[in-house]
């Protein structure tokens, strides 16, 4: 096999994290069954590690406390080998600072905290809502990562009747369409809102019994009832509702 043409030749870009999207996934599939490529990537990674170490700096003050406080609350992934880990969360200590809670939320939900200035107000309200759900003594989480790369994570508080949901890894909806999140169960599916990329969505009225979350593609602005097929679905056990 020639290491300098075809898929093998992407070992350099791969070692530099310079592949993305479909090309990255394709190369990783190739890598899984190409021993010489694995060998080459391993060697090249040693070189990129030198580049990484040459960039070493000093972590800002305050970061240590935030991270160590968050770690006291944040549970670890339980079965590392399993492809679809479910998340668990201990009740957050009441005294934990808002910054720490936001950090925990970010870690759990894959939320990026930094936003552009003009979106800050809306997001502060959202960050507060997220922090409130997380800080609830009855906060619980569930989630799943699917083979196609999409993932759903839910943190809910039955006491508040609220939940924070993130759906990630979906392709953007076609022009003029939106992704809409639904809660299905007994009765008609209920809209929880429109998704904005990977942004967390606060479901303000998250009550029910066992059911499922589903995402569909709907005309711009959403529909009253789902018209499209579910792109992703997550079954919810009754305990997310506190039953």
């Amino acid at each position, binding site marked *: 096999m020639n290491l*300098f043409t075809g898929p093998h*030749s*992407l*070992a*350099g*870009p791969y*070692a*530099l*994290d*310079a*592949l*993305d999207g479909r090309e990255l996934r394709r190369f990783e599939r190739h890598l899984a069954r190409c021993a010489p490529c694995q060998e080459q990537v*391993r*060697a*090249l*990674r*040693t*070189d*990129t*590690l*030198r*580049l*990484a*170490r*040459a*960039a*070493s*700096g*000093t*972590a*800002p003050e305050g*970061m*240590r406390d*935030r*991270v*160590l406080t*968050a*770690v*006291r609350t*944040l*549970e*670890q*992934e339980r*079965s*590392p080998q399993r492809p679809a880990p479910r998340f668990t969360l201990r009740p957050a200590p009441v005294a934990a600072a808002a910054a720490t809670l936001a*950090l*925990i939320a*970010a*870690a759990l939900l894959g939320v*990026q*905290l*930094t936003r*552009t200035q003009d979106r800050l107000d809306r997001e502060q309200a959202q960050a507060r809502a997220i922090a409130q759900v997380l800080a609830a003594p009855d906060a619980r989480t569930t989630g799943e990562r699917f083979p196609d790369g999409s993932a759903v994570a839910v943190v809910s508080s039955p006491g508040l009747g609220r939940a924070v949901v993130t759906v990630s890894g979906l392709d953007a909806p076609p022009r003029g369409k939106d992704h809409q999140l639904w809660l299905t169960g007994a009765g008609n599916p209920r809209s929880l809102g429109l998704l904005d990329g990977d942004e967390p969505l606060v479901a303000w009225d998250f009550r029910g019994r066992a059911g499922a979350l589903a995402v569909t593609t709907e005309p711009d602005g959403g529909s009253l009832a789902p018209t499209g097929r579910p792109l992703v679905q997550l079954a919810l056990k009754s305990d997310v509702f506190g039953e």
Partner: protein
Amino acid sequence: MGADELLPRVAQGDQGAFEDLYGLVSGQVYGLVRRVLRDPAQSEEVAQEVLLELWRGAGRFDPERGSALAWILTLAHRRAVDRVRAARAASDREERVARRAQTPAFDHVAEEVEAGLEREWVRRCLDRLTALQRQSVTLAYYDGYTYREVAHRLSVPLGTVKTRMRDGLMRLRECLGGGLA
């Protein structure tokens, strides 16, 4: 204790081991993230997220596949690159390009952060690469561009960039003597 011993303890839920690990790697994680993202506030956030991911996902580390430090810094680099690409896609591509044109890729940060022996060696060795090798490697690794973007920015064919990335890294290895890591 080194990162290779600490990480498995962290995977067992040992918070003391995590504190020690934090002391060992937080500067390297933050420095690398900062090198890619430039913005201190964003860098701090991403570095924090990476450190928490270390805690949560320590069990995913497989010593068969490399050192703990390599695993940690690979994670940090990927998260930084994801963030910088998302930010670029969102907006300021043009502005960044303009800014980059005025700042040599490596020297800039070398001034910002404390000098180190290894940094000095890496810099010297980067200087020994051909211009195309050096630019291909640093635009990808330190600026988070995909190899397609690198090819576009340097106006060279994709195949050339792939090759320059690989042989640039290999030449770097020869120069650095393969020790450390």
